[in-house]
């Protein structure tokens, strides 16, 4: 089992102790790619003069394809039975995954084309690769995930796994307003107000979440997995263990 992080700041190593975490960055992957394909001397020179910027601009997606190529190479090595990639955010996810098709069209021969074709094979084979989309039970994230899901199916042709709805408030059910009013009637007004306001706040957040989850279900008819909100402002390995239990013992 391997977890792959792309660019960004390394955050996962501390959260999943005992699982191998690998960070892949585009410039390093491009450099490695050039070295592996007999451009070692050029690679050195390209880096020195910064021509990599120019190459990346000349053929947008080349930095994405070298990253995907690296992941494909790890998959082909047979060293891992599962590789989980923490992919880019919604907007970039589509360009990231369409880079292979784009380059296969744009480049007629050579190592980039071969690479693009091999990545396309990986993306199109549901036994080798699936995309798990993650969202929150709020309006904008739900809109984004629906758009992303359709774009990935149409433009990339990759198999979608279940959609994960993260951070859902699934605590103990709260009494309705009338019952709550009855229960606080013997308390002083201020305390009663606090209890009622807090209950109303929580109920209305939950209603909004439930509404968004229902909308997601109707707009995106694929299986969903719900993960509960953790009472924390940042996750710890213990939180990750608990959340993993939700997915399966």
């Amino acid at each position, binding site marked *: 089992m391997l977890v792959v992080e792309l660019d960004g700041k390394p955050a996962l190593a501390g959260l999943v102790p005992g699982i191998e975490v690998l960070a892949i960055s585009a410039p390093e992957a491009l450099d490695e790619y050039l070295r592996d394909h007999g451009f070692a001397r050029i690679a050195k020179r390209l880096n020195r003069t910064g021509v990599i910027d120019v190459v*990346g601009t000349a053929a947008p997606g080349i930095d994405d394809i070298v990253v995907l190529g690296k992941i494909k190479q790890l998959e082909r090595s047979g060293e891992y039975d599962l590789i989980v990639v923490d992919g880019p955010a919604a907007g970039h996810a589509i360009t990231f995954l369409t880079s292979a098709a784009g380059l296969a069209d744009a480049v007629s021969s050579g190592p980039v084309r071969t690479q693009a074709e091999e990545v396309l094979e990986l993306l199109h084979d549901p036994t080798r690769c699936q995309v798990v989309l993650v969202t929150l039970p709020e309006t904008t994230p739900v809109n984004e995930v629906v758009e992303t899901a359709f774009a990935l199916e149409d433009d990339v042709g990759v198999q979608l796994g279940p959609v994960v709805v993260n951070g859902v408030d699934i605590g103990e059910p709260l009494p309705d307003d009338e019952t709550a009013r009855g229960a606080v009637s013997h308390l002083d007004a201020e305390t009663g107000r606090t209890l009622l306001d807090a209950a109303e706040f929580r109920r209305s957040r939950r209603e909004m979440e439930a509404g968004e989850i229902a909308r997601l279900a109707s707009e995106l008819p694929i299986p969903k997995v719900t993960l509960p909100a953790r009472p924390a*402002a940042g996750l710890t390995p213990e939180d990750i263990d608990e959340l993993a239990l939700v997915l399966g013992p």
Partner: protein
Amino acid sequence: MSDTTTPPEHVDASVVASDGDVIESSTVIVCCGSGGVGKTTTAAVLGLEAARRGRRAVVVTIDPARRLADALGLADGLASEPQRIELGPSTAGNSGGELWAMMLDTAATFDGLVRRHADSDEQIERILTNPFYRNIAGALSGTQEYMAAETLHELHLDDRFDLVVVDTPPSRNALDFLEAPGVLARFLDHRLFRLLMLPTRGGLKVIGTATQPILKAIGRVVGSDVLADSVAFFQAFAGMETGFRQRADDVVALIRSPETSFVVVASPRHDTIDEAVWFARQLGDQGVGVTSAIVNRTHPEFGCGSAADAAAAADAARESDDGVLGVLWDNVAALRRMRDLELDVISPLAEVVGGERLVVLPLLDGDVHDLDGLLVIAAHLFDHPVVDR
């Protein structure tokens, strides 16, 4: 709901005055922070409040989601030209304030720059139709940030507005926005660029021996068509570097001037606060101070006791067999615990920007999806009553 604007202990009450100053004295406000923290909404709220106070504010967003357009009552979405937002009389009053909004159009802005700096229609045509140029306009890292900076400069010079509020792209590196204007200038100064230019200068046919292997290698990696396009682009761009560099310098000077305020936006989570702290430090190192920090979506305060008090009250209620009251107290305990955790996470940001410059805004009980929703946030941020439109 109880008073939800109460800031954490180390935050002084003058926060409200501080953000009011930002609104009244700046000519440019740049909102920055990681993605998903409510940056776009915050930019809209600042623009709305400025209009309420009689300023002619324009909000530039990069948010392609329809949410902001909906919130502003724009049925057809945001356009790439500023559009005036209808404000009710009780919002803008007789203050003379106006609110405008537009969406950043990276490619169109870049085309505009090329048109401005090119010598001839023929040069414009050659550049705009070049596939390599289209890629730069869409894909060169930093282009979006650069065009956001360029757009804000243009709006700053536009007589219709006296305040420009910009919502920056969610960069991996938040400083891209400051540095981006220089990126293209550096790109054009590139050694490869100069090498590619050699053949056209004075009709010299010296693609030196040094250039050829590089060009060949690039051609082998990316394909020869792509290479031909890039050579054509660099040749078409000849003579425009100076104009571009001058403009980039002007844009950077505006961003760094005291008329420009930086507002760092975060949510009360470790990762976004870390990013905000890092960004505030970097800005400080660059000699540009953060004017204020806004932490969105913090759980509101319910009552004045602690989480432990509420948990004890829940136990007591259950002991006297009052299950419903027990559940209600449990809920208060959970909400207070969450708020405590969040305020803890926020404190490093308060230390960096100064507690008096940090505002904590409450998580609302629903989504913000109309002008009234923005007004509710403005009321929290600037401590005035929510007005009906």
